[in-house]
């Protein structure tokens, strides 16, 4: 079907106008508003002790979530793609749940298990471990919401490459580990890389679940996204914009890496 020239142009203009109005102009405006007061003010605003601490907490939590979800994501992908057992659909559904559940509900669920009145609340308090309103709670929330990304990227790749090479390696006497390191891992590396980028972006940007369990103590349990909200609530608009611009810059970088990886993945 060949669309007539006027129709083609109309659709092109409509599509781009929609993206401009909904995405690009707002994001561009944030950068403009951020740098309106001058680059010195922005620098001061993202190097306050609270901002620096929020930045490092965000990095720390994201790093843990990425490592844990990558390792276990590959394990789950192997179970889904290579295992022969009943009830796979159930595991498939459970893995998708974090995508469909409200982040606020995720935060609440952690409070109901690990909070002071939670299932394990008293035992944890007796052991002197604080999960909710502390870093472990933020980590658990972030791990929950980012759980599906690596599995969802790696499973189809594993199915695609099949297990012929793995079986050949096994017949030739390779151990399970050798087969994994030399055959399986190299063939899924771009899938893993893409999943890691998605996990990182979501972990850095997570707000709802973290907001419920963090307690928002400045300098201790405040992540970058929480800092944005607090500054906005305290009428520090310039500060909120500066922290947002930092997060948006990280997002744009993520997008760049995603595009590059996607190309590599398709070539592979």
């Amino acid at each position, binding site marked *: 079907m060949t669309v007539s020239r006027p129709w083609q142009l109309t659709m092109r203009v409509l599509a781009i106008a929609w993206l401009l109005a909904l995405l690009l102009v707002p994001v561009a405006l944030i950068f403009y508003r951020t740098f309106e007061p001058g680059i010195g003010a922005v620098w001061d605003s993202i190097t306050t002790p609270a901002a620096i601490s929020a930045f490092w907490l965000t990095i720390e939590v994201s790093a843990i979530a990425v490592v844990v979800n990558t390792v276990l994501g590959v394990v789950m992908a192997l179970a889904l793609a290579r295992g022969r057992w009943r009830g796979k659909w159930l595991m498939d559904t459970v893995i998708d749940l974090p995508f469909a559940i409200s982040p606020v509900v995720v935060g609440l669920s952690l409070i109901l298990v690990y909070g002071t009145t939670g299932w394990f609340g008293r035992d944890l308090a007796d052991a002197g471990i604080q999960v909710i309103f502390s870093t472990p709670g933020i980590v658990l929330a972030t791990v929950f919401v980012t759980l599906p990304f690596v599995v969802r990227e790696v499973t189809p790749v594993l199915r695609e490459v099949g297990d012929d090479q793995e079986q050949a390696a096994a017949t030739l006497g390779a151990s399970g580990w050798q087969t994994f390191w030399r055959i399986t891992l190299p063939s899924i590396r771009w899938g893993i890389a893409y999943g890691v980028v998605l996990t990182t972006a979501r972990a850095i940007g997570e707000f709802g679940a973290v907001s419920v369990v963090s307690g928002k103590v400045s300098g201790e349990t405040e992540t970058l996204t929480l800092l944005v909200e607090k500054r906005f609530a305290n009428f520090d608009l310039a500060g909120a914009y500066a922290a*947002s611009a930092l997060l948006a810059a990280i997002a744009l970088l993520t997008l760049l890496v995603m595009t590059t990886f996607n190309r590599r993945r398709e070539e592979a």
Partner: protein
Amino acid sequence: MSVIALPRRRPAVRSGALALGISTLWLSVIVLLPLAAVVVRSLDGGVGDFWDAVSSRQAVAALRFTILVSLATAAINAVTGTLLAWVLVRDRFPGKKVVNALIDLPFALPTIVAGLTLLALYGPNSPLGIDVAFTQFAVLLALLFVTQPFVVRSVQPVLIEVDREMEEAAISLGASNRTVFLRIILPNLLPAILSGAGLAFARAVGEFGSIVLISGNVPFDTQVSSVYIFKLIESDAPIGAAAVSVVLLLVSVIVLALIRLLGRWGARHDR
């Protein structure tokens, strides 16, 4: 044959069982245990309290608005997403690669930043003079922003694969563009459009970060269920919050199941 098959199967099965065991344990601890806590503890105060919490006027109003605005989001996405996918697949223009990359921006951008961003352009200090902050329309706008990639990314690959010969055959038999689109292209895309819209709906129902700043959280007006749950947690009513969460969870699970069925239908359509 069986002599060779036996030894080479063994390692695969053993590592498979290990992977299955670890996966089950991990999912149980991280996902199922907390969700079970929400369901079980929503009944801590008995069935009466549960019912009171989910049938309170504010809870019902919030849920009603959440479902309606999410349906609107899904419907608008179905149209704009298909349009964007069409332009990205069938059109050629300079800068198309950049546009294609930018589609994923909402997935990469933190939701709280998305909300602040929309507030800057369409809020009280709007340089365009458009101020929709704290209205139901603002909630719709935020949801459209964060769900924008779903339909595009689900339709795009299908549109690339659509059999152009079918279209050419129809045209050579005298069918108009309209007929070709409605009778050949659209039926091929429909499963993808619906599953993308379903994902957008599921995401919209639970969305929190992008809405919290721009909605103003006005009860009976712009308050969505996730924000209502958040308020309940903050006012130290976790059991009531759990009850409302169960309803929201139920909606998510149903939508997820429908998308799964749709996927199967789409796969059959392919054959």
